[in-house]
């Protein structure tokens, strides 16, 4: 039960943070959701058995916790940690351009020349206007001729 409550809180916080605009906040949200997933795994083995999973000569085997899940969690933590660091690196690199191209069409942005042309004209426009129209090139060119 306590695990379920904890997972709920973590997921709720994580979803809230992911929906934020800044990438660093979203990254923290991913960290929370990753923790929630890890707790689900740990809880999957049952929470009654808490003894260290150490089997030795003449040791009691009752109440040992499941070592497999601890191994799973450890693996998952390592992966999540590496990815979080990379996500922070992405946030640091050019993070000030967050969202600028997120609604732009791929064709609008998939070529370096396109960015060169569009940079002066789109920078003066509100961000929302980049999402419409299927011939962005023509539009931009037309404006420049005009």
């Amino acid at each position, binding site marked *: 039960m306590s695990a379920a409550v904890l997972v709920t809180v973590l997921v709720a916080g994580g979803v809230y943070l992911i929906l934020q605009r800044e990438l660093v906040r979203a990254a923290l949200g991913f960290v929370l959701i990753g923790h929630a997933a890890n707790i689900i*795994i740990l809880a999957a083995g049952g929470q009654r058995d808490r003894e260290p999973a150490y089997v030795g000569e003449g040791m009691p085997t009752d109440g040992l916790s499941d070592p497999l*899940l601890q191994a799973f969690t450890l693996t*998952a933590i390592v992966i999540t940690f590496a990815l979080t660091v990379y996500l922070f690196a*992405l946030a640091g690199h050019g993070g000030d351009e967050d969202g600028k191209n997120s609604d732009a069409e*791929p064709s609008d942005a*998939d070529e370096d020349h396109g960015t060169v042309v569009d*940079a*002066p004209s789109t920078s003066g426009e509100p961000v929302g206007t980049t999402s419409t129209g299927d011939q962005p090139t023509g539009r931009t060119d037309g404006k420049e001729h005009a």
Partner: protein
Amino acid sequence: MNPEVLSATLPAYLWLPILIAAVTLLAKRAKDLQRFLALTTHTLILGGALISITAVSDGTVIAEQVSGWVPGISIPFVLDTFAGLMLAVAALMVLVCSVFAIFTGDDADPYFHPLVLVLSAGVYGAFLTGDLFNLFVMIEVALIPSYVLLTRSGKATAMTAGRIYFGVNLLVSAVLLAGIGLVYGTAGTVNLAELAGAATESTPVALATGVVLLALGAKAALVPVHTWLPRSYPFASVAVTALLSGLLTKIGVYGVFRIYGLVYEGTGLETVWLVVLLATMIIGVFGALGESGMRSILSFHMTSQVGYIMLPLAFFGPLGMAAGIFYMIHHIIVKAALFLACGAVEHHAGTGKLAQLGGYARREPWLGLVFILAALSLVGIPPLSGFVAKMSLIHASMEAGLYLAAACAVVVSLFTLLSMLKIWNGAFWGSDPEPPKQRVLTSSSATAPDATDPAAGRLRRKFVRTAPTSLDRVPRRLILPGAVLVLCTVGIGLGAQALMDLAITAAEGLTDTTTYTEAVMHP
């Protein structure tokens, strides 16, 4: 080949590329050595996969209990016909895309070959593993290099695309992880052979596995969780886009086939699959029609094709699954051929926007031929492989009484043709476009840098490059990799029976799980 020898080679698909990746990383100043090592490894793996197919072509399942642990304790590697086919086609993709990257100079980045090697190791591992948690790890091993490959160029567009791709996959991986935890909690194991049939016996296991299937479906870009794909794939370099399209989404498809076949024994979600997959087919193709760049069209269209590949899940059976497997192999090859043909154009013209392209079929007839053959194969025109794939799929749907699905498959094909014609008309047909490059450069340099936008000056400095003159020919070597893949699709189309027999054996292994579980649990 002796099964025992063969089973001992299975872990090599994982460790060999990773080992060579480490070596190529050390040799990052010696480009030629790096290329030689990478291409040799890819060729070796392809050869190994082809040999292993001959050993499992009769439906044999070979299981390797890694490190010699007893069955049930070990984390097994399992090779069956389906896995063998996927291994071979994945290795072919890696080889061809690496060669293409060498020809375009995309591998100038010293980390390119090491990353591709690690990515390929993850993909092979995902195809071979017989353990749900190991599947998660292998998917991560394949995904992490892809994040880096996507963002290595450092372009603002690639970074934005990388953030979308990375964020979505991170979230989906967390869902996958939680799902695997729930499966362990409900079933007490994550060994796929032990899980066989578990979902049909217990509702909690079915729900937990459903979470895993949801995550894998998102990785395969099924509607309604497909939107990340068209926003991220077109921004990588051409070779990387082709590689990701051929390998990464297909891990999701492979995982769904395997897990739905084993754990659900192919029953219980028919209606869900039918609705989701028909929506995927239809929305994917219309989304592709709305795009205006070559690779954007192809990327969005991939979603539609994944719908085709997975459609047999709605009427799980040997015939249908055989059609699905055949379709997947055909699709991986043809899609990569299209990406590489368009990539050759893009590399030459310096843009992928259809509005700025034209006349390539006249100037480069061979490139035009490669594109049109691949496009017709995608649409399903005989005698190319796409015809056999679609024909068998439609036939299987009719047998199962799903006339709506069959009709959708036919109608969506017409729109596939339309989206391919959009590329053909824009880039290959017609006359040369008026040269926009010079005007673009002068106009952008004439515009004063926008002082309020710190990015503008930086973008301009970073991205301006000399415009290629349209008098240059597209180098033959850029056409070659696509041409090899087109020869494959023609070959598969003409000799369809051989591959179809293999696909049927593979499908029988998926629909009847006893051989699989016996081989893993009681060797």
